[in-house]
């Protein structure tokens, strides 16, 4: 009885594996943000390249840790968004984009200096493991 109580109180005081991993996951997120800011604030191209690489590397670590935690039931995944909400979002996005597109074309014609050119390359499949 005494031992059980001691174990319980110890259990309450100590962080377990899952707690530590959650702390690390948050710290990885924060570190990614700081690396991104550092990248945009770098004037030296060599430093900028290093911070870009560190951002990507840390993003990979964060994704990998998240996956392992999810597999081991240490992270509750958010519930899926309903189909209706996605439909609505697509509709709004298409309308908004059409407006922006029209505006960019109008301005292009007025100034004569710009004409619309696709600046986004063809969308490649993103179904591979995004964390490698």
């Amino acid at each position: 009885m005494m031992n059980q109580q001691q174990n319980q109180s110890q259990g309450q005081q100590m962080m377990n594996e899952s707690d530590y991993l959650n702390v690390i996951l948050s710290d990885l997120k924060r570190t990614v943000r700081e690396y991104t800011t550092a990248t945009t604030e770098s004037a030296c191209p060599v430093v900028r390249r290093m911070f870009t690489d560190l951002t990507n590397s840390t993003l990979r670590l964060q994704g990998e840790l998240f996956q392992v935690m999810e597999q081991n039931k240490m992270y509750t995944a958010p519930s899926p968004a309903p189909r209706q909400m996605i439909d609505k979002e697509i509709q709004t996005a298409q309308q908004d984009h059409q407006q922006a597109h029209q505006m960019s074309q109008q301005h292009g014609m007025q100034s004569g200096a710009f004409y619309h050119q696709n600046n986004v390359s063809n969308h490649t499949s993103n179904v591979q493991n995004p964390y490698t």
Partner: protein
Amino acid sequence: MNNMQMKPLSGKELDYIADSLSNENMLIKLYATARSVSANAQISQVIDQHLQVHEQHTHQMIEMLKQHQQMAPTQSH
């Protein structure tokens, strides 16, 4: 960007590198603590791999500081 000409390190860049080194150190300590309580083989393996990457990050930044060392102006006051 092919023309990667090195510029002297700005004070801002130095601050970001110093903060980032401190972040990496904290992560190494956190991972080491998690490693010591981990009972799961898969997780222990991931922790070991990640620890190595964080060591590399630290070395990368120290090397960057060394590369810029010679270009830095010496204090004149």
